[in-house]
């Protein structure tokens, strides 16, 4: 049996966290959860996940970006997915593929919330290979 892949899931909505965790566990992942950037950083000091999934707006409007930056600095090989509802609601647009934003958004993918579990699992599998 192969070792279970570990996912770090960070979101300040505890229901969303619970739902995604349940779905990811069913898909065979081991899931560690944190409710914010600071809690996530503590977890990261003891675990190196195979993939990190971060909500954008948590304690601060850009906590997700800051955490992504932290992760890429500490463990550049860990793929990072940022989930956000902001793009839909506020009309902001982040485009991971535009060259200017590639520089400062340290995420491998940005996906819009709500994210369907199948969709998330597909993204994870694509990134961790």
């Amino acid at each position, binding site marked *: 049996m192969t070792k279970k892949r570990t996912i770090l899931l960070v979101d300040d909505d505890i229901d969303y966290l619970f*739902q995604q965790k349940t779905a990811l566990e069913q898909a065979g992942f081991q899931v560690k959860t944190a409710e914010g950037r600071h809690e996530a950083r503590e977890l990261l000091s003891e675990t190196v996940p195979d993939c990190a999934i971060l909500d954008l707006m948590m304690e601060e409007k850009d906590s997700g970006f800051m955490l992504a930056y932290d992760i890429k600095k500490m463990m550049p090989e860990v793929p990072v997915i940022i989930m956000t*509802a902001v793009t839909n609601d506020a009309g902001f647009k982040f485009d991971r593929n535009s060259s200017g934003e590639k520089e400062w958004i340290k995420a491998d993918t940005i996906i819009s919330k709500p994210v369907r579990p199948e969709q998330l699992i597909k993204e994870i599998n694509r990134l961790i290979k």
Partner: protein
Amino acid sequence: MSGTAKTYRVWIVDDEQGMCLGAIAALENYTVQLDGTSELAGFQVEKFFDGESFLSSLANDRPDIVLLDNKLPDIQGIEILEKIVAEGFPFLTIMITAYATFDKAVLATKLGAYDFLAKPFTPDELRYVIRKACRTLYLTEKARKLEEEKRRARFEFISVLAHELKAPLNSVEGYADMMINRTAGPDIGSYDQPMERVKVRIDAMRKMITDLLDLTRIESGTRNRTIEETDLREIAAGVLENCAQMAAKRNITVKLQAAEALNFPVDRSEMEVLFTNFVTNGIKYNRDGGSLTVSLARREGAVEMAFIDTGIGMTAEEQQNLFKEFSRIKNRKTRDIQGSGLGLSISRKIIDLYEGTVEVESTADKGSTFRVILPVKK
């Protein structure tokens, strides 16, 4: 012009050289104080000797004020005015009428001229009209900026509101999907906890909608206010009674300190909302077994209401956006506390209605004190 905050551009359209030079001389070093500020506005004058050169310059340049002579070698001033008005240019036009006929002036203003000057006029008369125009321009600009700011704030509010309302919907939908897909297994009991959460999120959403209606009613001024002498101690006691069960659940002692009846001219329901917001916050953000003291006192020319809790408190950083809509402090200590993020902004709006103030003192892990002061209206 140096030393002025703003320079208005005045274009004078007149075929009389002397007129143009006179106007330049009158306005060159002239300054006007802008309303409500200590800032000065100056003027830069450019001259045009015929209608055609003036009109063609408008293609790629803009004045703020135009002094337009009616009698020009090529086109009638009135004709130019009609063109300007039809194009909707934002500058102000002051007509100069050579033969001081009242009906010409009336016609010009009817057509859309801002004002008129009758030849011959003194430098002071010119300055007077220019000063008036300049103040109009300044006020119009200020109003436009305010309007812009309001629009932007409204957009931001609605964006955040949409986000806040979608969050519980997403959560409820997620749990529904869990059940549909039997994600937590075939046992119905496994879904008890998720369904509890569904209820919690729906309640919170309902509370947010109620708060939102309160907020808009206060803001729009559509609520009928009845200001009458009311005993604030009685209101406080009523609110504390309503919240007693909530406090008892977490073993929080609630005290009311008020020496006597405290009559003050208020709208009763506004005060009930205000007290309820501060009292429920004082309980929600408290520690188990803590205390909340509501103290009322008459001060010189004011009443003071203080809400003192022994709760989780706030850091200086957390206090920054306290009264802003939808701002909620998110940390591990507040994770299980429900709230719309509107309570304090509603309270602030009510306090504003009374021209009152609210101050916060808070220490993390020690507690917070909210002090509201409502002045006696003169």
